[in-house]
């Protein structure tokens, strides 16, 4: 290898850091969308590095569906405290209580799509002009199309048919009043890259990502956690299984997989051998062929 070459993890790290700094420089009031999932944890870790030795110059924003794994909230609060960051919480429950959104009914109800309204309301309230998201292009076919700097109109909508050209490392974050941007520093990370980066940086993760025993029931090809927020059908039965989660979102739509991987090495080996994408366990993506694009158009993460 020539001397002046960088390993691929160093290359995508340098790129993500550049995007984070560019976001701080080009926008008046950015926020980092923090869900407590591994991608947003990695993104926040990168943000802490990008502005070292200063603190992250923008707040973390959690859109709380009220249907969380308790582990996620515990982790969130400890993590935010450790970074010395400011946390803003947008509450879906509050959006429901004030009548901004209507709760879905029935056993397949999910607050996933309601999050969009809470997110857009919070952006407007707090006057955020850029929201950093942990989305990766390898996650989903609509995300594969998205720019690093992704423009949103005054209704928070994405127009995938007319995205701004984005060349070299020149990013155009100009907007009109009421519009905003979504920025994706991890665009070029793959799921495997994220895990390898977590290992290299020794980043602590919520325990949900590692094998543990849990009461679950089988639905739609994966195991859902038994919880008060997810009514079970008569035909479904609860059982104890050793599982872990590949992605973490709302408890109602994040499925677990059977796994005994209890540390990072084992998780990485499992990811390398996986024959299903990580979003294969996400009920929110399975609602239609273009479910992700449709939600993103509306203003979803």
């Amino acid at each position: 290898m020539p001397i002046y070459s960088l390993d691929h993890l160093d290359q995508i790290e340098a790129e993500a850091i550049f995007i984070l700094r560019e976001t701080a420089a080009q926008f008046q009031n950015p926020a980092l969308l923090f869900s407590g999932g591994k991608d947003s944890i990695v993104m926040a870790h990168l943000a802490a590095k990008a502005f070292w030795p200063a603190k992250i110059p923008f707040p973390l924003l959690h859109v709380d569906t009220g249907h969380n794994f308790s582990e996620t909230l515990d982790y969130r609060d400890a993590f935010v405290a450790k970074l010395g960051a400011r946390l803003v919480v947008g509450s879906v429950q509050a959006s429901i209580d004030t009548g901004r959104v209507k709760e879905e009914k029935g056993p397949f109800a999910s607050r996933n799509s309601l999050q969009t309204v809470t997110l857009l309301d919070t952006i407007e309230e707090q006057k955020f002009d850029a929201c950093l998201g942990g989305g990766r292009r390898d996650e989903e076919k609509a995300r594969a199309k998205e720019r690093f700097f992704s423009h949103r109109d005054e209704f928070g909508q994405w127009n995938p048919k007319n995205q701004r050209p984005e060349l070299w490392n020149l990013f155009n974050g100009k907007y009109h009043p009421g519009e905003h941007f979504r920025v994706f520093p991890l665009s070029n990370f793959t799921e495997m890259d994220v895990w390898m980066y977590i290992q290299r940086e020794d980043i602590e993760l919520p325990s949900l990502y590692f094998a543990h025993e849990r009461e679950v029931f089988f639905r739609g090809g994966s195991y859902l956690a038994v919880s008060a927020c997810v009514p079970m059908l008569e035909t479904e039965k609860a059982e104890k299984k050793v599982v872990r989660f590949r992605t973490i979102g709302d408890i109602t739509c994040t499925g677990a997989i059977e796994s005994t991987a209890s540390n990072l090495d084992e998780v990485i080996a499992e990811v390398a051998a996986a024959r299903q994408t990580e979003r294969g366990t996400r009920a929110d993506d399975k609602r239609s062929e273009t479910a992700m694009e449709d939600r993103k158009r509306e203003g979803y993460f």
Partner: protein
Amino acid sequence: MDLLRFATAGSVDDGKSTLIGRLLYDSKSIFEDQLLAMEESSRRRGDAVVNLALLTDGLRAEREQGITIDVAYRYFATPRRKFIIADTPGHIQYTRNMVTGASTADLAIILIDARKGVIEQTKRHAFVSNLLRIRHLVLAVNKMDLVDYSEQVFQDIVGSFYEFASRLDNVADITPIPVSALNGDNIVEKSDKMPWFKGASLLYHLETVYTGGTANHVDARFPVQWIIRPLSQEHHDFRGYAGRVAGGVFKPGDAVTVMPSGFSTRIKKIHLPGGKELDEAFPPQSVVMTLEDEIDISRGDMLVKANNPPEASQDVEAMVCWFSQKPMQIRGKYIVRHTTKETKAIVQELRYQVDIETLHKKENCAALEMNDIGRISLRTASPLFYDSYRRNRLTGSFILVDPGTHETVAAGMIV
């Protein structure tokens, strides 16, 4: 591991997305649920075979129309290399999205439909790739299954492409490969249908081609992106300059000059993000530098070595690709973004427009329309610190932004 970024190029329907689908499929880089989803949508659409283009054509409008509209990024790895693929659209209307995908590529796969041969859009994309200084081209003559895997057809197309490409000054190598993206011939495995072809399969070539990257390691350039001032007890006097090295190599102790102020000082320390100290920094590293002296430095300024400064001027000559439906106006005013700097600019002159078919220069043109390429002279409100694009992609490129609509209307390469 080593990383190769490549883009597809070529006319609409030549099979770019199918080729990428085939590459991912045959190299076992597709997950079972993706495959199932693809098979199911193919069936629903009534396609005769599994439509591999559906792997990258992810937008609703693309799937409805069976064409690519915007660039899709895909990732895969073999034991030899990691790859970032940009699958770009062939339709002329979406040239700007092709340019977006190609701007960060080290290699371009130019596809040609074996039945159609070299057509205008092939030339346009080859020309754009050359303009962007993508030095390594693969000429994938596709749909060989529709021309009886004929060696003659292949040779004729390769011949006419070479004739055109002899006028492309930046191309280092062209590797022609006859393929059928649909059937997988010569994509991952060598095909037994074309024994006359002695070269390697596409994947083998991608795994082994040496590109050497595009970075300039000679001329030290550090555009300042963000100033880090913790103002905390612990780091009370810390004042760090954050940015990404755009050229050359910087070391602690190096004498540097700040542009535009001209002040000189020395580098005290260089830190990686998170604080680790470095002995040297080079592209594309993102770092923080501290300096021996306190000088006034802001975003958009550039740290360079005194004996090797970039050009500094308010007048630049550049090739531009025009992206907007609103034609480029001579005397028109735009915002220019160059490295981390932003300033106003006015188009002084349109020197010529390039005729894509012949590569001739058309002079005395009144405007550049959408998808046109031409050479302009630009006058900026404050000086740019630049190198020619040929010397350095990062300090030689800029975009123009319409001050009214905020759209990115052009990509520029400084000559």
